[in-house]
């Protein structure tokens, strides 16, 4: 009898031993919990369908979420890193999916994850191009790291600038003010937009950089007003942006707010939070599927998400996190093994249609390849708040509505 017990345990464990997805996420914040929900949704779908086929056996996914608190001010990144280590060492995670969410933390976690030789897919938050660059520079060390969500360089040159041009052409606008948060990606992004748009003949006011947590934007707004700016480009991932829009509305600034990253306006609850004062604000949610759209037949994702969580996808991490799990499943099944090195190859060979189009990774940077056409690559989404709804306005291939101007802008004309 004595030898039976361990054997039983072994067999039963073998039968159902789950594949552990470790998710280091700052779950108290938008980009943390949206990713968590996306991942959990995908996992429950996959498990309901029988799990993942590794070689000959079917194994379910299990999710271990850890709150890294990295988006919280005053909390050191080492806290997030310790969380990642907990996932790796104690929870015995087979994969790291999701975060860390803050760019700084994501970068800092790279060596740790690489050291553990675990495949990791970044799905939410961090937009820094440095992530892919670092992978490209040290392919041997960092080859296990992938990112399936958007990245700032493409977002700017491939989506935001074309969208701006489109607006400019349509309404004959060519003056822009830029307000960004005082973090590297925002400053860099704002700077590039300023430069490119200036080259394209727009008049661009000097960058206004606001520290994280700023609560008063009136000076910048009135500067924009007196300089007769027609578009206000906003790049801030902090909740206080809804104050900005309220002030914008209260001061009746005759300029269209365009959020290249504007966490507050991405959420469905934004409407209530600003008492509708945020109408006409444009926001970028990085990947399609994070706002209702018709990008691909996979729109069922939005419905499933809503069914499971009771809200539409909120931040820009939902659809990509969801897709990360499916991508992983796909790669595991193709590789037929859990060996990290084999999986890297399989991941690199990924070619999968998903919520936001075709998922393929750049062989050098391990970054998902973007496109304006869902048939070609991962598409982004820019939407505008119109009468309480998020209406997708860009890219044209998936748009469901037109860009509108606030009434006081028309009056001003």
């Amino acid at each position: 009898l004595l030898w039976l017990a361990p054997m039983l345990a072994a067999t039963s464990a073998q039968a159902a031993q789950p594949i552990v997805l470790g998710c280091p996420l700052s779950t108290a914040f938008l980009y943390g919990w949206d990713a968590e929900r996306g991942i959990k949704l995908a996992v429950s779908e996959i498990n309901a369908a029988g799990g993942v086929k590794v070689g000959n056996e079917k194994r379910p996914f299990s999710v271990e979420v850890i709150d890294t608190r990295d988006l919280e001010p005053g909390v050191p990144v080492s806290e997030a890193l310790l969380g990642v280590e907990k996932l790796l060492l104690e929870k015995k995670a087979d994969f790291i999916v999701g975060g860390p969410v803050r760019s700084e933390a994501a970068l800092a976690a790279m060596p740790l994850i690489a050291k553990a030789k675990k495949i990791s897919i970044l799905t939410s938050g961090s937009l820094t191009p440095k992530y892919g660059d670092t992978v490209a520079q040290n392919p041997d060390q960092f080859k296990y790291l992938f990112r399936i969500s958007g990245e700032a360089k493409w977002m700017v040159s491939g989506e935001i600038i074309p969208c701006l041009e489109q607006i400019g052409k349509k309404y004959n606008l060519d003056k822009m003010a830029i307000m960004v948060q005082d973090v590297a990606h925002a400053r860099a992004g704002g700077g590039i937009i300023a430069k490119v748009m200036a080259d394209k003949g727009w008049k661009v006011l000097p960058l206004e950089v606001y520290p994280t947590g700023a609560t008063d934007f009136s000076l910048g707004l009135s500067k924009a007003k007196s300089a007769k700016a027609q578009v206000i480009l906003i790049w801030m991932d902090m909740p206080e942006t809804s104050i900005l829009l309220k002030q914008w509305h209260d001061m009746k600034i005759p300029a269209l707010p365009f959020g290249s990253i504007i966490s507050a306006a991405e959420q469905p609850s934004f409407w209530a939070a600003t008492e509708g004062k945020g109408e006409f604000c444009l926001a970028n949610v990085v990947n399609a599927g994070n706002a209702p759209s018709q990008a691909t037949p996979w729109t069922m994702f939005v419905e499933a998400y809503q069914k499971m969580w009771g809200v539409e996808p909120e931040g820009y991490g939902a659809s990509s996190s969801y897709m990360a799990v499916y991508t992983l499943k796909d790669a595991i099944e193709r590789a037929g093994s859990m060996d990290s090195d084999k999986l890297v190859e399989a991941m690199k060979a990924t070619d999968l249609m998903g919520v936001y189009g075709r998922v393929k990774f750049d062989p050098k940077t391990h970054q998902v390849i973007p496109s304006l056409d869902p048939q070609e690559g991962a598409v982004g989404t820019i939407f505008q708040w119109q009468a309480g709804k998020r209406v997708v306005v860009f890219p044209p291939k998936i748009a469901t509505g037109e860009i509108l101007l606030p009434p006081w802008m028309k009056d001003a004309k």
Partner: protein
Amino acid sequence: MEILIYGLINSVSLALMALGFTLVYGVSRLPNFAHGSLYVTVGFVTWLLLNRLGLPYPVAMLVSLVLIALVGAATYQFILVRIRGMAISEIIASYAIGLAILEGLRWGGLKGTTLTLPVFAQGSVDILDVTVDFHRLLVILLGALLVGGLWMFVNHTKLGLALKGMAQDERAALTLGIDSDRMAVFSMALGAVMAGLAALVLMPLGNIVVESGYHVLIMAVAVCIVGGLGSWTGAVLAAFIIGFAQILTTAWMGPHFQVVVALLAIIVTLISRPSGLFGRQKELEERV
């Protein structure tokens, strides 16, 4: 002109945030590091009363102020009283209480940016070409009223004077019949109400978010210390220095340097006036 008006508004907001803390710390030497969380709590409770129970706005505000006063008093009565006089323990304990409240709220659903309080008055006016909304004007007015009221309270009522006495020398105050525990409970309650008032006045301009709790705490501490302990003029002046430093840097150097300059202003003020603008602490302690 913009600078003047918005600097004024900014400064008054800072002063409002700091009043409660200054009252409790400056006057009764009890560092209430749960100040910021009381501030957020009032906003959240008011929102709940307003939206979940459907109370009218003024009633909701009143009820939440009363509640917060009780919370403040209870904090002292049940927790802080046991470590009275050990300053570092007091700081850590009250900070922990604040943390528990804030993180509890966050867990209880106060996530993201969804909640907001309505402004008292819609609309805006143009003052010398600067658009200012009514609510912000109200902030200035209320701020002035509160500062004045508190000043009267502290300098010209028995209770206020007793609080002051207790802060400076508890044992001597005891011999004069000032019941220090009762006073401390009272000052905590009053401080909580102050935090609440600030929240009610300032929150409609923004959102009810947990993070503002930390922000308010740091600002309140800075204003209180830079002004000099227990000095009202000092606190108000400090609020203006920091407030204008922020607005001026926004205007001239870019908002980029806003925090850097504000922090530098604090450090430089303290180095040049070691006991705050109007404090006499150092001189008094060094008088031999």
